[in-house]
């Protein structure tokens, strides 16, 4: 296979400067663009894109980080499950860092509980086989991107008749969250950057109702800096032409229909939940998934129900994550940002994961909000 460069070409300085010039020339009105996905937030901050874009383009950082939107009571679920005797709890990435009401999985691990941070979710099968006398719990998180991996694990557990692996499902979906933000009427958002990898799975058709209902252009964008710049240009052009449709900049990976096989697999094992509380936003009906009833014997929320706390826990009242997620405030507007609330001791949802808006501002944004000093 020939080597394909997926980095340098998408970071070409001449290309970046040219795009910035064209956008500056064509952009004539104030445009608030929400990037839904935490990966885009990261790209925008890490590569300093706001600094080379005209002042009337403003990014609003959406609820697109699966770790950030996890309410504390569900983290407490993970902690309760990991605290059971003879149990291994496995989850992804920086989920283990996030504090619940009392402690975090990371601290619990230091106290001797068996908690594994996986890179490949499929490793949980291996863990379950190697520990037949233990309960193994997969605390599944993520948007549509990671859901098919969970479905594959469920399929393998069923086929291989593994009896010690359970699932705590926290998979959430993008369109309902976007709808919840827009339907309040107070969000100041003119256009969306559509998520990259979510769209690989779902196809870009899922954003068509949003573009139509709210008259907002949606451009599905790749994660590289030239992807985002190109997508911003496409948004500017739609707005200038007074249009609002779903456009696909990330055509090298995304189609209108998406990955049909993955969608069918998800549908086989998972169904919509009627309620799911999003940290910083609150309840969004039908915005998350759960195991179908015929797989209830694999569902940790059913099997270990009596152990799981039920009290709903909100963030500290100084937190303005809800307003940040709606585009009504910026991380710097928050009184506790960078002081009481930092990546090492986060108070609110947007600071907890490296993909969260506040965390990205903390790491990359201190030098410049639009080029000036803080």
């Amino acid at each position, binding site marked *: 296979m020939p080597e394909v460069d997926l980095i340098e070409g998408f970071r070409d300085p001449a290309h970046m400067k040219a795009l910035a010039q064209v956008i500056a020339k064509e952009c004539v009105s104030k445009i608030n663009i929400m990037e839904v996905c935490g990966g885009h937030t990261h790209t925008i901050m890490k590569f300093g894109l706001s600094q080379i874009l005209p002042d009337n383009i403003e990014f609003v950082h959406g609820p697109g980080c699966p770790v950030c939107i996890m309410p504390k009571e569900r983290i407490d679920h993970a902690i309760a499950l990991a605290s059971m005797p003879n149990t291994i709890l496995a989850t992804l990435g*920086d989920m283990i860092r996030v504090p619940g009401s009392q402690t975090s999985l990371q601290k619990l691990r230091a106290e001797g509980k068996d908690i594994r941070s996986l890179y490949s979710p499929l490793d949980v099968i291996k863990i379950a086989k190697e520990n037949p006398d233990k309960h193994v719990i997969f605390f599944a998180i993520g948007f549509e991107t990671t859901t098919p991996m969970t479905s594959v694990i469920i399929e393998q557990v069923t086929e291989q008749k593994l009896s010690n692996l359970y699932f705590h499902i926290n998979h959430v979906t993008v369109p309902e969250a976007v709808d919840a933000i827009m339907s309040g009427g107070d969000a100041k958002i003119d256009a969306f950057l559509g998520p990259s990898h979510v769209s690989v799975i779902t196809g870009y058709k899922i954003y068509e109702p949003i573009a139509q209902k709210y008259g907002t252009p949606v451009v599905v964008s790749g994660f590289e800096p030239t992807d985002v710049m190109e997508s911003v240009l496409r948004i500017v052009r739609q707005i200038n032409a007074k249009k609002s449709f779903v456009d696909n900049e990330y055509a090298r990976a995304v189609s209108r229909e998406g990955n049909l096989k993955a969608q069918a697999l998800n549908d086989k094992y998972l169904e919509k939940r009627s309620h799911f509380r999003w940290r910083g936003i609150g309840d969004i009906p039908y915005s998350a998934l759960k195991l179908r009833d015929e797989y209830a014997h694999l569902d940790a929320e059913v099997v270990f129900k009596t152990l799981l706390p039920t009290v709903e826990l909100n963030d500290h009242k100084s937190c303005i994550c809800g307003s940040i997620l709606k585009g009504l405030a910026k991380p710097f507007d928050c009184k506790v940002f960078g002081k009481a609330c930092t990546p090492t001791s986060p108070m609110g949802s947007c600071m907890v994961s490296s993909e969260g808006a506040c965390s990205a501002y903390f790491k990359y944004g201190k030098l410049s909000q639009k080029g000036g000093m803080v």
Partner: protein
Amino acid sequence: MSKKILLSHGGGGEETQSLIKELFFKHFDNEILLRMEDAASLVMESKKIAFTTDSFTVTPLFFNGGNIGKLAIAGTVNDLVMMGAKPRYLTCSFMIEEGFAYDSLEQIVIAMRDEMTKSGVKIVAGDTKVVPKGGVDGLFINTSGIGEIVYEGISAHHLKEGNVILVSNEVGNHGACILAKREEIELESELKTDCASLWKPVEALIHAGIKVNALRDATRGGLSAVLNEWAETSEICIEVDEAKIPVASEVKGVCELLGFEPYEFANEGTMVLCVEKGEEDKALAILRTFVETQKASIIGIVSEKYKGKVVLNTPWGSKRFLEPPKGELLPRIC
């Protein structure tokens, strides 16, 4: 069955003696060590001595381009070199888990011997402990070293406006190589550690009369940790150009895949240098004549713009602070 290290190898009796003589003395052979006194008796010419110690624990013990033994020598040698000292003598302690393969231990010892020839340093005293299964993860090594200071004035306090910053090699190779090898990640790659003793290139810089104000090997915390520590300690600003920092494309790939920054990855044979303005081209030319520093690059300057901070300039005109690394490195989710 292959030979294993047993608890009796650390018991102080006959087995211990045979392990010491047949393995350690065989490879670390030198007059002072072979004298087998309770302590080594040393003669140093210089009155100014650098003295350091480091313990080495790494999983996996063997990786592309090296093993824990090579690290244990290069790591301590480099700590001495970064103080302008010529590395002279080392001590070495092995903490070995019962059941460890003898062959693996010998491979590690051979790597240590080979690495010592690169700086001329000698192991003059040592200790061996064998602990019951589970007591350590395979093998831990501690090395302490002393060297003679031949160049004075190197300090994290000595960076001044106008000074020039260089890095001696691609950054992030060791961290990315170890990460790719970890069981839970299992990435296939050709990545090699940068692990190397840096005495030869530093000696050449000293001989050429290059005015070096600060020198640090970018180990844990990587380039970012060194630059931030310097900026803070000397109360100056370091401005670097992202495009000039050498990063291997495989390292970029690993970082993109897992959501890390190459500037935060550990290195084991890569140093950051701060030299007087006007000396940078000469320093660069010297570094490029050595294999271990041939990818050296001038990456930035010292200014007074944002005191205590490191600024990273992108090639398209934006900039950000390079924050010091924090917390445990955890891969991103999607």
